[in-house]
């Protein structure tokens, strides 16, 4: 039965349904509701909730819990995820699964509490030191948030690598009808996990790490691209947007289509690995791409440009409509498109 769920609560319940056993976090707006919810729900279910003394301790507790075989998660917003980066790097390097939730707010430093996507480049490039990546999923509805969290632990265990849920302040605050899946648990011990017996942790020697990790990430790139394409079959212009702005873009496409404009939308669901395949299957004759994002200078547009470079032999212009901490409006996107088509917009790439 569908019920109205608030995004942040849905994150928590979705993770629990997916088998979450250990959570450690620190209060930060606009993510606090996730941990508040878990703080009473986890003891209720006989699972482990820890309010950590800081973000760094939280991610390191996750490191220890994950190594010993628990489905583990931490969450924060931009500033807190910055503090966790060393820990995320250690998780990936040590081939440990974990789920990280980023309910983003706008800006560098303290920023504001506005909804935004300004952590895009950090989160899709691993974020911490070293050449590694984490799988990053960007839901655009409450139901999708739940479905992705429900799957996240298994995906993290499959590749022994962290998975991040890339949410946004507004997505955490809004409510939508949502069907919660049944509770599931792993039900078996991960044979490589640390249990004190010094068994084989199935790790490679230090000198084999670069080869091993490159292979791991290549496999993820090959198998884990996810996206949704709308009206792209005959499109001349393609919007590219993820998360909440993608819903605005979808409305804009719908309206423009009813006016006879040949526009389409690519919505990356995985933002790492980036869905380059979505661009490879586009028709010939595309005249431009427009990234619609809530960043300041345009971040996602860089991935659009790289995907276009890979997917097309000709040089197709890539534009960006970056709306900072303000959610774009449908009318505004339509106007930007008209300006673009009239040649009044400067290309980003």
């Amino acid at each position, binding site marked *: 039965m569908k019920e109205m769920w608030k995004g942040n609560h849905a994150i928590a319940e979705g993770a629990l349904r997916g088998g979450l056993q250990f959570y450690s976090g620190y209060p930060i707006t606009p993510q606090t509701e996730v941990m508040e919810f878990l703080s009473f729900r986890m003891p209720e279910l006989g699972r482990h909730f820890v309010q950590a003394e800081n973000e760094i301790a939280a991610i390191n507790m996750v490191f220890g819990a994950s190594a010993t075989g628990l489905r583990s998660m931490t969450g924060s917003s931009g500033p807190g995820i910055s503090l966790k980066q060393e820990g995320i790097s250690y998780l990936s390097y040590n081939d440990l699964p974990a789920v990280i939730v980023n309910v983003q707010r706008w800006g560098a430093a303290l920023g504001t509490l506005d909804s935004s996507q300004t952590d895009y480049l950090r989160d899709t490039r691993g974020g911490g030191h070293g050449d590694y990546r984490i799988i990053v999923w960007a839901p655009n509805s409450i139901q999708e948030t739940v479905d992705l969290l429900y799957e996240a632990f298994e995906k993290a265990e499959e590749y022994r690598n962290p998975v991040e849920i890339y949410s946004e302040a507004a997505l955490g605050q809004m*409510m939508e009808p949502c069907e919660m899946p049944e509770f599931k648990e792993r039900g078996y011990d991960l044979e490589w996990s640390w249990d004190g017996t010094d068994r084989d942790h199935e790790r490679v020697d230090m000198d084999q790490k670069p080869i091993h990790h490159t292979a791991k990430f290549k496999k993820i790139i090959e198998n884990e691209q996810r996206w949704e394409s709308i009206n792209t079959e005959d499109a001349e212009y393609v919007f590219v947007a993820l998360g909440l702005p993608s819903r605005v873009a979808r409305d804009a496409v719908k309206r423009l289509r009813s006016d006879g404009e040949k526009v389409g939308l690519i919505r990356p669901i995985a933002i790492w690995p980036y869905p380059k395949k979505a661009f490879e299957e586009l028709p010939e004759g595309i005249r431009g791409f427009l990234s619609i994002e809530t960043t300041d200078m345009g971040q996602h547009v860089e991935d659009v440009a790289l995907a276009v470079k890979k997917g097309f032999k000709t040089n197709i212009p890539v534009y960006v409509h970056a709306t900072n901490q303000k959610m774009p409006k449908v009318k505004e996107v339509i106007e930007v498109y008209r300006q673009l088509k009239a040649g009044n917009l400067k290309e980003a790439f």
Partner: protein
Amino acid sequence: MINELVFSGFGGQGVLTAGLIFSEMALKEGKEVSWMPAYGPTMRGGKANSVVKFGDEALGSPNMEEIDVLVAMNQPSMEYAEFMKKEGKVFLNSDMIPDDTDIRNDVEVIRIPCVSLAQQIKNLKGANLVMVGAVIKKCAFFEKNFAIETLKDYFKEKGKGNYNEANEAAFLAGFDAIK
């Protein structure tokens, strides 16, 4: 067809709750629905609002885009009138918004003294529900009894079922205020 409703006022005037009650009605009728509260800096200074969208097709933007129905519980809420559709309806709290307030002339204005009405039935906190009743009667989004039952269920779920008689009275006061 998607309906866009905005409930706006000071924090404490129940505009988030009013939106949630409409969301529940839409959900019960099997419609697609989204509820988006004001958050972050827009809430500073005690301003609050919630945007409810519902309809039979998949919803896109959950944000304030083009408003069909604006419920304005205070003067500052009138700034959202600029986002209204032509022929949209604005329900304003005439106890707090003066009659001489400048309002664009391509929308329908419905003045409801929701605070006085709530006072008359000794349920001052129910001013928001007076507005809910008025919107239901005027726009006929949902059937009257269904709306009342949903409203009661909503408060019962929240452990506030004790107030349901008073809340129904508030709803009816608004409902009957529309001739």
